[in-house]
């Protein structure tokens, strides 16, 4: 514990803060049935979007435990994007609504902890909405670029 906490401190400052062209690392959780397919469509349709997002496929946004999101931020992700089916369209009928409720509480909690709630974003994009997914990613990347690197982040 003590050994690791010493190391990244100096490395983080020199590498990431100085970097002019800050490229955020964003973790995206996409549900299998809508947004992952939507992201796939965006790719096959050659829609342009920034390459900052690392997608993790989950069966449903309802599977995403808020601790996954906090863990990602704690490990240094600059932002977390959650993308799922539109309300009413969930493959499992209500998984996305559960995520929506969790998200509301989580955002408020992150805010009261004195952290930036904008680092977490929830969006809906169906399998046919490659453009919506692309837009969401663009907006997220812009927002996070404006916020700057996650101060909790460690250099790679």
């Amino acid at each position, binding site marked *: *514990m003590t050994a690791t*906490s010493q190391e990244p*401190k100096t490395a*983080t*400052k020199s590498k990431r803060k100085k970097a002019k062209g800050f490229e955020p690392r964003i973790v995206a959780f996409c549900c299998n049935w809508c947004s992952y397919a939507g992201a796939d469509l965006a790719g096959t349709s050659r829609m342009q979007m920034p390459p900052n997002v690392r997608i993790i496929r989950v069966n449903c946004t*309802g599977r995403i*435990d*808020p*601790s996954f*999101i*906090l*863990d990602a*931020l*704690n490990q240094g992700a600059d932002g977390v994007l959650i993308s799922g089916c539109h309300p009413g369209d969930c493959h499992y009928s209500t998984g996305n609504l*559960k*995520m*929506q*409720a*969790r*998200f*509301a*509480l*989580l955002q*408020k*909690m*992150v805010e*009261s*902890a*004195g*952290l930036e709630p904008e680092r977490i974003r929830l969006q809906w994009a169906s399998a046919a909405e490659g453009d919506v997914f692309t837009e969401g990613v663009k907006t997220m990347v812009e927002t996070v670029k404006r916020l700057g690197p996650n*101060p*909790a982040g460690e250099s790679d």
Partner: protein
Amino acid sequence: MIMAKRIALAQLTSCWGCDQSLVDLHLTLLEVLPQLEIVYWPAVVDYKLKDLEAMPDESIHIGLVEGSCRTKEDVHLLKLMRKKAKILVAWGSCSCYGGVQGLGNQWELKELLERKFLKADTVEDGRIPEEEMPGFTESVVPNTEIVKFDVPFPGCPPTSENTLEALSALLTGKPYDLPEKTVCDQCPKERKEKSITKFKRAHEGHIDPDKCLLDQGYLCLGFATIGMCGAQCPTVNTPCKGCFGPPPGIKDHGAKIISALGAIADMDPEELEKAFPDPIGSFYFTDYGASYLSKIRDKEREEK
């Protein structure tokens, strides 16, 4: 005659309720006491820090550390206990998770000091004490992140029965494992399929004593809290505050609570959010110091 085990009980920043709970064993204490040789217990006997410092390393069989590190002296005592004790027990939720005082991590140390010593309503001509003081730590982190512990033993406080059970196990050399169960498993109330349309404060409405408090819309955290206390609070119609912390294996108590609430609340997200004006206080009563949020904030501080 059985060889008495040398035991040391150290108090860091805390309410000393864990000691109270141990002493509450009353006559049952007599069963344990002959097997114990108390070598350090400032809460009860007049020992000084130098007495502990003078002991040879690893000369104490069992060391119990209660409280968390709010001052630098606490950190010193904690590290000292680790050096002197063979088996170190994180005694109580403060020691395991940072305790109620961990909630202070939502603010900077400077803000906390100003609030307490300068801005409090009862303070006149306030000043922040600095002379002859050990100095404060920037934030409260669980003791388990400062030194290695052999036995986690949460509770706020652990009940007298818990304490007796743990002590007896340690004395006979048996392993002491935390239960995987939750408070709900110990609660006698009748549970149903959950669908909550409105959350109530504890003083609102009338509680049906036979039914699950959460089903009735009271935020009872028994479902996410380790079952050691015997469901003391829900049994007397008081919602569980989660003071014993989560069951083993749960990394973030509050995140797990949110996860469950999202699944059982049949409410608009906005309404749900409004129902909890202080989410950190409600979901991390004694373990905010151990939460991801607090860790992220600590890293931010280091960065600055």
